[in-house]
């Protein structure tokens, strides 16, 4: 279809779709008035039954923990997919698509950038670990903290060159770390089954509400997920940067 026909076709469809949306909204309660027995029930039981103060994490890692297992593996499969997609082939075109202007020399990062990046590095790692481990207490958890953790190596990259970055984050180690994190989730679930519960049932001691060691398996799962997410993102960064480097080194 040519562009104008396609656009016209879309406008018609969009009008119909908007109509469908509007019809469905006419039966929705206005903002703030929806009710859900599920949500209220969850809110009332997270503290007494699981000693977890962050209800969202309780839902994510305990009550609906199986969903999160699937989600973690989506991340795992996608990172694997990206690695697969960006791998070097023997018949790669050489010297074709450069990523920078011709003849430009990319300068080494300036001192200001290096100092700032390196200064922020340790607080970032600490902050990331804080978010990961406090998932069951305050908003946060494995995924969020893992992403923050993964920005730490990126800061390192900003402050240095690609070979140095690669030396600090060897791909094999990162891949292994990611796989360990991913399998940890299943492993914990299996352990729960071995200890007499269902898959992923929270059978570990629940600890005192509001302390770091509370929520049983949730804390452990948080750590595993944090490891997997941070390793996964670092791996993706490595793969993307390597793609850039191919172009630059020609």
């Amino acid at each position, binding site marked *: 279809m040519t562009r104008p026909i396609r656009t016209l076709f879309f406008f018609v469809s969009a009008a119909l779709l908007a109509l469908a949306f509007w019809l469905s909204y006419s039966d929705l309660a206005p903002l703030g008035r*929806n009710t859900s027995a*599920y949500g209220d029930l*969850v809110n009332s039981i997270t503290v007494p039954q699981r000693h977890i103060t962050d209800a969202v994490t309780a839902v994510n890692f305990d009550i609906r923990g199986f969903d999160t297992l699937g989600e973690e593996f989506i991340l795992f*499969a996608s990172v*694997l997919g990206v690695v697969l997609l960006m791998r070097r082939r023997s018949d790669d075109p050489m010297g074709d698509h450069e990523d920078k202007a011709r003849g430009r020399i990319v300068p080494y990062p300036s001192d200001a950038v290096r100092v700032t990046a390196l200064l922020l590095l340790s607080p970032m790692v600490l902050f990331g670990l804080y978010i990961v481990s406090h998932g069951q207490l305050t908003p946060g958890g494995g995924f969020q903290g893992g992403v923050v953790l993964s920005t730490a190596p990126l800061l390192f990259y900003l402050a240095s060159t690609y070979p140095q970055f690669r030396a600090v984050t060897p791909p094999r180690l990162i891949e292994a770390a990611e796989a360990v994190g991913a399998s940890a989730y299943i492993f914990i679930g299996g352990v729960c089954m071995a200890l007499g519960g269902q898959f992923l049932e929270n059978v570990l001691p629940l600890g005192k509400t509001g302390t770091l060691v509370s929520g049983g398996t949730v804390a452990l799962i948080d750590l595993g997920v944090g490891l997997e997410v941070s390793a996964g993102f670092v791996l993706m960064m490595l793969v993307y940067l390597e793609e850039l480097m191919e172009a630059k080194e020609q």
Partner: protein
Amino acid sequence: MPVAIPLIAAALLAALSKAISQAASLIIAIAATLGAMGACVLLAGASRSESIVYWFGGWRPHAGVALGISFVIDPLGAGMAGFAGILTLAALAFSAKYFDTAENHLHALILAFLAAMCGFTLTGDMFNLFVFFELMSAAAFALCAHKTEDPGSLQGALNFAVTNTIGAYFILTGIALLYARIGALNMAQIGQTLGREHPNKLVFVAFAFVVCGYLIKGALVPFHFWLADAHAVAPTPICVLFSGVMVELGLYAVFRVYWAVFDPVFHIHIAGLRALFLSVGALTAVLAGVMCYSQRNIKRLLAYSTISHMGLMTIGAGLFDPVALSGAAIYVLGHGLVKAALFLCSGILLHRFGTVDELELHGVGKPLKWTAAVFVLGGIALAGTPFSGISAGDASLHSAAEHLGYHWVRWISLFAGTMTSAAVLRVAGRVFWGWGPARERASGAAPKSDEKRETQSGHKTIPSSMFLPAAVLLLAGLFLGMMPALPQSTLKAAAQFTNSSAYDARVLGGVSIAIPGPAMPETNVTFSLIAVGLAILIPAAQLFSRQARVLSKAIGPAMKWLHALHSGHVGDYVAFLTFGVAVFALACVFILQ
């Protein structure tokens, strides 16, 4: 359990990918697949009398509110998962010699894909269904684009990824709307709550969104454009998985969601729903059958034949009747096996000659006697030879359709089966025996597309690891209808699947209700023989007679327009998608009132 085993193996493979050899990784992958399959078979057997309900994390329903995520295992679902395992096994076996440069990441992704399919079929929670849908899709996108040096494969994967992701977000919107209204995510609970109320527009629209999202995966018209592209470029073992089971799972999800969630409330609108699904299915079957016949690229041809058969399966399941559903289920099995065998044969051709273009391969297939045999038999099987899986499925389907008064179903089924089968037989004639003209002058043929090699050099012999899976699968598909217990047990399974009140009661209350078994349909051998006969006549006519070629030239312009519509441009696809969803949603609201 069937989900956990492949996932662990996938993680293991990824961790050790650089350390172990390709052979070891393949062994681990096959072992994991066998483990998952074994678990599925056991589950299918155990759940025959009543569905098994498994609550994850030990969160049982509390005063009628389902808290945790449940797996509701019934024979149909476990059967689909087991079938996915069989095809994965075949794909893995084929890929042993097929990928010269594969890394172990490929096996890990295939295992993740299998795990997703298993989880998808067994779950009883709407959002969990979505999560596994996404896992399946993510693995599929990466697997589809495996041949990164071929720009066509990247484009195909891109079209695939964009359309399916948009479909997924339609599903999510539907789930959100339902949650807003009902406040639950567990399918049984939503079903029970909906059954107590009068349906309103939101429920219709949510239903439409969810169904359309899954239909996009199931590649029905007008959402079907991505499938031909994706299949044309994906590596052959992956095509096996896509055609054999992934697309069927889209349909499975639609009907699982319908029977578990929407049946209590839509029951009185069944006539309208039937009309809707039957029209979509019929349109798909006919359109894709026509497109199938006019293709040059063998893999694309097979892809269109999958779409066409999917249309037939939609008709079967869309009759909303246990007998028809059991027919559709057997059809899925039979079609999957045969289609997998056909794809593997085309993979053998690609491996040996470096192309899957029908005209380029003119006559070169003469030395491949056994492959030719499998290919021809597969082609005939698509029309429904007596005793094959496809014809057994057809039988149940047709008898249910007649019973409900839809007499035209039989003819659509004949048309689709014949067209797809004729296309395959024509290819066989051209490739393996060199019949017909070497250059096609009809202007209605699809344009040429080139497919890069998947293996490095032209091999002289076909390794048995490539040929055996194809042969085994084909034999299974050909004789599936002869398995004595199959129709009866599928009927019982279908009855269990469609009994939504039993489902809800079992999941929420742990109560099991006895399900009556419906009557057995009779098989019709003459019908399938007619189909086979036509399927042989049509390509023979095209290859040998001049008049037939003149005829095909006459319909050239119409075909050209049809081909132009399938442009390969992702914007076009999404435009059609939007139109389809909007029309379907409004149809649901207005027709079903």
